[in-house]
């Protein structure tokens, strides 16, 4: 194991190291308030390592770990997300006296798993990274240990177990047909030119998609989302909805472009169909929700559907030219991270004060807290995809990718779904602005969560007005694609 390999792995090593330090310090430090501050400060370490690696195109561990702009893009995104979530967790974490260090430690370990998912290209390593993130997330989901949180944790545990079993079975079949678990070798060893000619390879690919579908919360493994999102501590919900989705898409892009790139005409249609089902399912179910967390849960299924359009639009890639599909996916994931985190953080800020997550209790929020109501409205508008919010550009790029790939029907399905989704997002805004407030009591924004809200909503507005900064990064991150 040469030292250079360790340097290339340094973001992951350092984030696990930070997790150890926080968990250890928790055993001795009495002032638990220091832990989150220390976590945020120490997160500068993995972030620094990651940024220092920007621009390198190297492989380590015999090609298992790959450090390229693509993986670094996701690592920066994931570290950013976990930092924001740690900041936003303050008031929630105050609800449990013990296990402060473990809460932050598990968040960091989950992030390490997700970072590795985005940076490895060998099936066994990918699987273990995925399990690392999932296991840590299960404990986080059940962290409150009340009935609802425990039920969520149990559901998450059982369904993630089922989905990883299916995915592992699919990986085993791919291994049985190609004789290798390395993505690059799979591409070389695949014995046929079309998936339909080799049933086991086809079934293996379908099973792998199903397993990753759990991570990105898309059909056919979307049923856990509403219950788990509702019962979990809200910062954890926000983390799952954004970070786990981003890493899931990173690994999907990597696996399908790298290992099964020759079969793109086969799986493109598969992802297209999954995209339409996920969008429609999420959006229709979201219309009937009365709980804001459940509404955002169904909305996250719908957004997984939108992002899948980018995977389906593989044919938009001109040989030697730009890959609109992956670019759109990366742009959308970042935009979605800012927007959805913003929405969840505002919900945390409001729910911590009024003690309710029911949409009707948000009535008259424009009077009780004009700022929070305005910011939530901004995030919801961004989720619909209306300018000047960043969500508009995200949808535009993805639908454009579909059109470029001669999949106009996908773009149309996406547009129809956007219209449907506007209905339930606008309903929340309507309740906040037009319904009379039950009390005149003000809802104040406290500093830690306020900082998190400010960080994310600034991103929503800034990248909405100047999307080319983000697009530039997305283009550079996918320039070496598939890599």
């Amino acid at each position, binding site marked *: 194991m040469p030292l250079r390999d360790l340097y290339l792995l340094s973001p992951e090593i350092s984030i696990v190291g930070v997790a150890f330090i926080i968990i250890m310090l928790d055993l001795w430090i009495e002032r638990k308030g220091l832990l989150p501050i220390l976590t945020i400060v120490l997160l500068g370490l993995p972030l620094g390592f990651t940024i220092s690696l920007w621009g390198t195109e190297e492989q380590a561990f*015999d090609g298992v770990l790959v450090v390229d702009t693509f993986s670094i893009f996701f690592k920066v995104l994931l570290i950013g997300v976990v930092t924001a979530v740690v900041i936003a967790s303050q008031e929630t974490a105050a609800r449990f006296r*013990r296990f402060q260090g473990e809460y932050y430690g*598990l968040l960091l370990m989950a992030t390490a798993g997700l970072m590795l998912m985005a940076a490895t290209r060998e099936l*066994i390593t990918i699987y273990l990274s995925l399990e*690392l993130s999932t*296991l840590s997330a299960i404990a986080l989901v059940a962290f409150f*240990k009340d009935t609802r949180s425990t039920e969520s944790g149990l559901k998450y545990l059982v369904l993630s177990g089922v989905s990883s079993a299916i995915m592992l079975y699919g990986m085993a079949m791919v291994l*049985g*047909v190609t004789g290798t678990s390395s993505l690059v070798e799979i591409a070389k060893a695949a014995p046929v030119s079309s998936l339909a000619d080799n049933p086991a390879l086809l079934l293996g690919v379908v099973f792998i998609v199903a397993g990753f579908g759990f991570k990105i919360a898309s059909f056919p493994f979307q049923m856990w989302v509403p219950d788990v999102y509702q019962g979990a501590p809200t910062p954890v919900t926000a983390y799952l909805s954004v970070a786990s989705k981003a890493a899931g898409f990173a690994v999907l892009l990597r696996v399908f472009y790298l290992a099964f790139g020759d079969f793109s005409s086969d799986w493109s249609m598969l992802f297209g169909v999954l995209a339409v089902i996920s969008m429609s399912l999420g959006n229709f179910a979201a219309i009937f929700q009365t709980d804001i967390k459940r509404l955002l849960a169904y909305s996250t299924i719908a957004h997984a559907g939108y992002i899948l359009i980018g995977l389906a639009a593989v044919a938009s890639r001109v040989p030697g030219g730009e890959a609109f599909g992956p670019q759109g996916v990366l742009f959308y994931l970042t935009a979605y991270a800012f927007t959805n985190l913003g929405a969840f953080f505002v919900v945390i800020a409001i729910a911590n004060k009024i003690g309710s997550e029911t949409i009707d209790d948000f009535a008259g929020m424009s009077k009780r807290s004009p700022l929070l109501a305005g910011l939530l409205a901004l995030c919801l508008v961004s989720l619909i995809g209306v300018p000047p919010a960043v969500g508009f550009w995200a949808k535009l790029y993805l639908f454009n990718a579909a059109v470029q790939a001669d999949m106009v029907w996908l773009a149309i399905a996406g547009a129809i779904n956007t219209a449907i989704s506007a209905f339930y997002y606008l309903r929340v805004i309507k309740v906040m602005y037009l319904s009379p407030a039950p009390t005149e009591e003000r809802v104040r924004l406290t500093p830690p969560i306020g900082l998190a809200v400010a960080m994310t909503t600034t991103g929503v507005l800034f990248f909405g007005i100047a999307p080319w900064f983000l697009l530039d990064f997305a283009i550079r991150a996918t320039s070496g694609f598939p890599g």
Partner: protein
Amino acid sequence: MHVGTGASIAFWIMAVVAVVSASGVILLKDIFRAALLLVVSFLSIAGIFVTLNADFIAAVQVLIYAGAISILLIFAILLTRDVQEGNPSNRLKIPGMFMGAVLLTALIVVFVNTEWRLSTEAPLDSTTAALADLLFSNKFVLAFEIASVLLLAAMIGAVVLARGEDE
């Protein structure tokens, strides 16, 4: 590849035992007996690994599954209240059986119709050293170390969930 008659007979006996005991696990009402049958199933699968010349995997199967996992499972049953009530009557029995049958058919069709990549090399007499060479090679050492962090996360998660707020 030529497989000896003895190995073939052993395979079929253990395959039947594995399937029958696994069916017992899902059909029995008494969950304690179901757990014990699961151990039988694990052991016969270890035997199948032996007939496949995977001796190290067979040992792992006995140590981890028949040993540790079963103990954990029986522990979990001992921690449960109202264990006599057994499996609650399952409303989804029929759809479950239907899905199982569909999956089984699909798998059989796929396995029969696929050209598998068969190894032409003779099986190793002992796989442990060969596995170790791979496991500690540069290629898989990352997975190996991730496994330890994974186990640690499981440990911490279990402590967090099993210990109450006030102790």
